[in-house]
Structure formats: C-alpha cells, structure tokens
C-alpha cells in the first residue's frame, strides 16, 4: 500500500496565507499555522567553512560519491513531544563531521545529507537534500553500451555533475526585504517572490523556530531568477478596494475587511499556483517517528515552472516542513533531456523521436545543455557540422 504521507500533489494543509510585504522587487508572503503540534522542532547549526564535502556513500575519508557545496548551516530536527520540549533553547553544538585544513582553507567533511544523531534527533542539510536528489537523477548514465556514448559516459555516468545557484546575499533587495519584514505571531513560513515570480517556499513546524530561522533565508541558495529578475523594477504594491455601496454599518465594514483578508490569501495562493496544487514526484528519505521526510520535484516540463524541494509530512497529512528551490530554465532543460533519454532506454534515435527531432538535433541539444561529454567526440562533431555549427 502506498504511504499516504508521500506527497503526490502539494497542498498547503493546515496552513494559511497572509497579505504580502514588498521591498523593492521582492514580495514576501507570510505563511501562518493556526494549530501548532509542538512535537517537531527545527534548530539551526552553523558551519563556517567555505566548502563542505558530504559523503553520500562509504566512509568519510574514503573515495566514493561526494557532494561538494557551500553549506552555511544545517538543521537539527527533533521529534516526539518530550524531546522537542527538552531540546528547545538548550541546543548544544554537537561535534558534526570533521573539519580539515587544506592549505589556507578549511573544509568540513559530513556524513550524508541526513544523519541520525540521537534516538529522536536528525541532522539534515536544508535544500542540499533536494538539490542532491535533483542532481542524482539518472546520474548513472547509459545502462546499455550504445555505440554513440563515450567511454567516460559509460564508465562514470554523468560524473561530475555540476549545477550553480545564487546565494541569497547576492541580492541587496532580499537583504532589505528580510530586514524590514514584520513577522506575524503565528507565522511559520514564507513564500518568496522576486518580480512576482515564486522563487522559494519555506515552512517549518513551529512559529518560534521560524522566528529564529528567518535571517538564515539570506544564506540559503536560490534559482538564478533571483539575480536575473532583480534588475527589473520594484514589485507593485497591490491595493484592494472596498465597495462602499454594500456597507451600511460598522459590522458590515468589519466583515468587508475580513473578506479583503481572504481575497489576499486567495490571490497569493493563485500566485504560487506553480508549486501549490502541482503534481510532484516524491521520494522518501527518512522516516522519523510519525513524520516522513521526503524530497520531490515537479513535472520538469520545460514550458512550465519547476521546483525541487523537500518536505516533512505528519501522519495526519499536515505539511510540517517545506523548502523549495526554483529551477532555472536551463536546469529544467537538462533534467528534461536526461529524463527523455532515460525513458527511451538511452537510445538516441528513440529519444529523438520522443522529442520530435532528428538524432543530430538531439546531439546539439545535449551539447548546448552541457552534456556534450556523454557522446563520442566524432559523433558529436559530425552532428554539429551537419547542423551548421561546426567549430
């Protein structure tokens, strides 16, 4: 039987949206939670090394699959009523991984994306978990040795697979927006829009945790739209108006303001339609008591808005934790190409047919997407020459 906690369609169960606050091009929509369970808490653990190397398989210092990135902090998740109460505010910095000096730099070596530290405690690397899932898609490369593929592709797959993202502090507007943002009392998360395009969603389980984690949003990474659309003008301050004709008493005025609030929530829900209500493919990562940690990605169709993310869902289906990353158009394209190749069994002509293209066109698309190294050099060159793009 399929686990009901595994997300198929992302729904903001138990959450409510409040009117947005705008700063420059950034619009931040507060996410409120009316009933707080209190048995899942998230705390922040900071790392100050410029690079962290996460061992995905095997031992810490052994050769094997590694994920390298700038990881400014981890989140420590504690569940269970007693443990969550005890842990809140008394978090000690447990030794985590290993710190190695490499010349003038320090590098932190970490065990896996999600690491159990105690019977009710888990350390995870926010967003890197989702990103790693995204990059590991079809990472193994062709599983049948078709003649077009290069020797490296056949033996090492897509290794090394590289994606770039933009840190929050690259955008001065985001800094200002987070600084001047007024956190609601029941707030547990935010939806972050740049030029009114959804960049990221971040939701935790408890309002106090959110208050503590608010400024960490500046250190997290975002899709390149943060910079690209940062050059556009300020997001408009939207106004809703009341219809004076229908109001005859103070009570009706009060009702009208309440309605105005609801309209705001509906409108923001509509603005985030590319994420909430979208079909997602999710994969279970860890089962923590009643909670299921999972990562997911949306359809990966290049014409649509695409997100990858991670979530924790409680046994009653409430969304306790959510963090998403908006894929850029080129990232989506890369994932889509790999998906098409894999579903055609890595056979080039079958994949080209699925894409309504010729085999040469597919080769050029692979080349443009940065996957040129998958094909043998002479195959790629011939395709480029035939497409009029010879070197």
């Amino acid at each position: 039987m399929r686990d009901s906690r595994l997300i198929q369609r992302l729904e903001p169960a138990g959450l409510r949206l409040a009117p947005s606050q705008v700063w420059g091009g950034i619009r931040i929509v507060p996410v409120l939670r009316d009933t707080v369970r209190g048995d899942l808490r998230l705390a922040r653990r900071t790392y100050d090394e410029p690079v962290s190397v996460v061992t995905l398989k095997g031992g810490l210092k052994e050769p094997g699959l590694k994920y390298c990135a700038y990881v400014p902090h981890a989140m420590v998740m504690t569940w269970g009523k007693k443990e969550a109460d005890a842990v809140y505010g008394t978090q000690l910095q447990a030794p985590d991984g290993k710190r190695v000096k490499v010349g003038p730099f320090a590098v932190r070596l970490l065990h896996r994306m999600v690491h159990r530290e105690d019977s009710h405690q888990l350390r995870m690397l926010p967003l890197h978990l989702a990103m790693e899932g995204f990059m590991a898609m079809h990472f193994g490369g062709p599983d049948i040795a078709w003649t077009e593929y290069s020797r490296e592709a056949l033996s090492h797959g897509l290794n090394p697979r590289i994606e770039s993202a933009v840190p929050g502090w690259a955008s001065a507007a985001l800094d200002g927006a987070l600084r001047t943002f007024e956190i609601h009392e029941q707030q547990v998360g935010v939806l972050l829009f740049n030029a009114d395009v959804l960049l990221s969603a971040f939701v935790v389980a408890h309002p106090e945790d959110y208050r503590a984690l608010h400024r960490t949003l500046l250190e997290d990474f975002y899709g390149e739209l943060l910079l690209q659309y940062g050059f556009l003008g300020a997001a408009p301050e939207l106004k809703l108006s009341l219809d004076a004709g229908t109001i005859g008493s103070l009570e009706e005025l009060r009702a009208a303001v309440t309605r105005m609030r609801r309209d705001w929530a509906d409108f923001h829900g509509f603005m985030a339609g590319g994420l909430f209500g979208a079909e997602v493919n999710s994969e279970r990562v860890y089962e923590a008591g009643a909670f299921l940690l999972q990562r997911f990605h949306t359809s990966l169709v290049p014409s649509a808005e695409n997100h990858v993310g991670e979530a924790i869902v409680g046994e009653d289906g409430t969304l306790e934790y959510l963090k998403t990353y908006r894929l850029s158009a080129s990232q989506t394209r890369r994932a889509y190409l790999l998906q098409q190749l894999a579903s055609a069994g890595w056979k080039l002509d079958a994949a080209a047919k699925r894409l309504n293209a010729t085999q040469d066109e597919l080769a050029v698309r692979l080349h443009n997407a940065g996957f040129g190294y998958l094909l043998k050099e002479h195959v790629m060159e011939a395709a480029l020459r035939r497409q009029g793009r010879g070197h």
Partner: protein
Amino acid sequence: MAAVAEVRIEQVAREDLVMFVNACFSCTGQREFYGDASGQSVSIEFLHQYILGNYRRLYARTLAAGINHFNQAQIILNLLASGSPAAPEDRGEEGALIAAALRGLPPPRAYRVLESLRARRVNNRRARAIAREYLAGRPDLAFDAVKYRSKLRAAVVHGHVKLEGELGPFLVHGWKKRTYTQPLLEAFRKAHYTQDAVFELPYTVAEGLAQRHGIPRDVFLQRIEPRLTQGERLRLQEAAARDSGQAPPVDLERASLTKLALYILALEPGARKERHAQLHAALERAAARVAGRAPSAPGRVAAVLDNSYSASGSLEKRRRPLGVALAAHYLLSTMARDYRAFWTCPVEDALHVQARGQTDIATPLLEALAWAPDLVVIVSDGYDNDPPHAVAELTRVFRAKLDPARRTALVHVNPVFDADAYAPRSFGTAVPTVGVRDAEDLPTVLGFARFAEGSASLAELEGYLGARVGQLLERDARRRERARAEAEGEVE
C-alpha cells in the same frame, strides 16, 4: 480664467507649506526603519531649499510652528546664508525669529549652528550680529568655553566677537599659555596635569581626560556623579550600573515625557515589571506636566497605537516610533476625559509593550470606531501591511457612508518621515496626517491637523503661523526678562 489660476496658486502654496511643516515636525535626517539616512537628508534638504526660494516669509515663520530642533537649526542656517529680506518689516521679524529660535535651541545644537556658519562660509553682518547677541545672552560663557570649546572658538573667531576677561586668551591664544583666575578655566588647565581637577569639569570633557590619566571607569563614574546633567544621568543608567556597580541617582520626575518613554523601553522586560509602580508614576507625572500646558482637552479619545516590528526604528533612532506611541498613550490618557488605547498587537499593560509582529491597524481601528469616540488618534509609521492599504479604504468608506457628518474626528500622527514622498506616509485622503518628533508636541500637532486635512485656507494657515510667531516672541521676551532679573538678583 484668472480666478481659477489664483485659486490653484493658493492651493499649491497651501499644500507646499503643509507638506513642509509636516516634514519639519518629524524628519531629522537620520536613518529610519524603512529609509536610509542619505535619502532622508537629501529629501529634507530639497524641501528646505524649495520653500526658502518660493515662500521666504512663511519659511521664516515656520520656526515658530513647533517644529523639531533639527529643522529649526536648518532654517536658521539657510536664512542666514541667503541674506536679509528687502522689506524692513520682514527684516525685523525674521531677525527676531532667528534670534529667539536660536536661544530656544539646546546649547549643543545652537553652537552647532554657529559652527556650521563657518563651514558654509556664511559671514554677513546679520550672521555676525546674531552670533554676538546669542553669546551675550549666554548665562555662563566660561562653562560654554570649557564644554563647547571648539564650537565656541569657531563662533568667536568667525564672527569677530570680542570676549571679556580671560575667555579671549583661553580660546584664541591657547589654554596652556597662562594660569587663570576663573575657577572652571583653571580647572580645565589643571586637569591636564592632575587627576583631581578632572572631577570639577563637565562630564563630557572629563571623560576624555580621565581616559588620558588612566582613571579606572568605576572610580571616574563615582566621583564625576555630582557633575552629571539630568540627560546624562538618564542616558548612563544601565552603562554605569554595569561599569561601576551603581547607577547615578536620577529624578525620573524631571525627565521629559518622550525621553522617559524611550528610557523605559530600553529596559529589560524583567526590570520593567519590577519597577512597574515607579515607572508608571513617573510617566503619569511627566504626562500631567505636558497636559497642563496644553490648550484644550478633547472629550472622548481613542488611540490606535502601532507596536509592530517597524516601531523599533533604526540604529540611529532606536525604538523612537514605539516611544512616541507609549508617551502619546500616557499623554492622551491624562488629557482626555474618557480614554481607551488600542494597540495593533494587544498588550495587557502599556509599560510592557514591545515592537513585534505585523502592522494590522484595521482591526484596532474598527474596535476604536465601535467605541464611538469624539477623536481617534492613530500613532503609526503609516505602513499597514495586514492587509495593505486597508486603513485607507476603511476610513474612506467610514467617512463616506457611516459618518458623513464628521462626528468622529480622525487624526494620524506619524513619527517617521518618508523621504520618497517628502512627507510622513499617510493613510489615504480621509485621514489627515501630521508628523511628530516628541510626544510633547502632540497638542501643537493636533492643532495643525486641520491644515493637513485641506479644509482650511491659505489665509488661515498664514494667520495660524503669524499667531505662533507672536507667541514665540512673547515667550522669548519673558524668558529674557526673567534671566535678566535673576542676574541682577545675583549681583545685589
């Protein structure tokens, strides 16, 4: 056609002036929660130049409107820098206004004006006369010569002022050259060589010399205690308690209302709870003192007070919007016959208020209106975001449909200047917005609100400013009379 143009010209002039006076109530050129310091100073600078160029007489009269010290100093400087007006009666009034306003400023600010005259290379006959007259009116120039040494020196040298006795040599020839018979000047000289003389100097001067002598901070604070001014005592409370284990005794009753409110907001929640009775009494006493001077008491008043996160102000103006709200709460509760407060984020006790949460003005405003008051005062920075622009809509509909007869007056008092709009940010057209810097100015500011609403004509505004000028000059004359009587009493 000409009549239409005339009406329009009058309207523009009125709007310009209201905007300027409003800006002068609140703006200090410092950083705000939403706006940075450079934007603020560029914006206010522009307003000053614009009004000075177009409405010179009214620009000078604004000095009497009850605006804040920063803008008074700016106006004095700009007026002195642009020469005297041509008409003799204007010249007389402007000169008297400048002199009176300068005397009314706190000494550090007044000396800063005189010093800025040098920096801006303003040295006309009027500027020199103003400087001379100001210095002649100072009660204890020797004290000023020690405490504001560089500024006084700048004023004296720049304005060619002849000082009597030892002051000239002390300031101009260098204090090292001789010994003095004036005790304070002599103490200043000695303090460079012996530790004991340090403690006869004003605190701000002694602080640097104590550092040079290597006097431990706790010893210094204990021995300088008798020399501390009221403001310094209030400011040093926590730091001195930390450094020397004992805070200097302060008479909270004597502190001004807004300063007191800001001091209380700087205290830890625990300390506020402990000293609740004392702080509450001090605030009430300070409010009563201000209320005693206020012209008339409104009847049934509701206050909608903003304690959202943006009320925490900026590094330069820490918690000022919240302090103004707290002070306004005490002042209005003292002044009004019937009073209720509605905070945006409800608090049980106003003394424990914190700047936290979103700005939801609509909910408390609806509650306030349901209470049917005569006057609703909204103290807020004007950024309502839950939902955005709800107050503008709400008040518009309220005025249009529920209260067309204007039984309930609405006023928005804004402690924050919005640099982009050249005015304090407003809640739409249905609520007049006035700026404010200290809650003590609230009665003045509420009196000005009818001009912000746009219902009064330019002539009325001119009449209002003219009357304020009369009051200012009268007050100044009385103060000088008193000072002269005191000085003569001492001589006898």
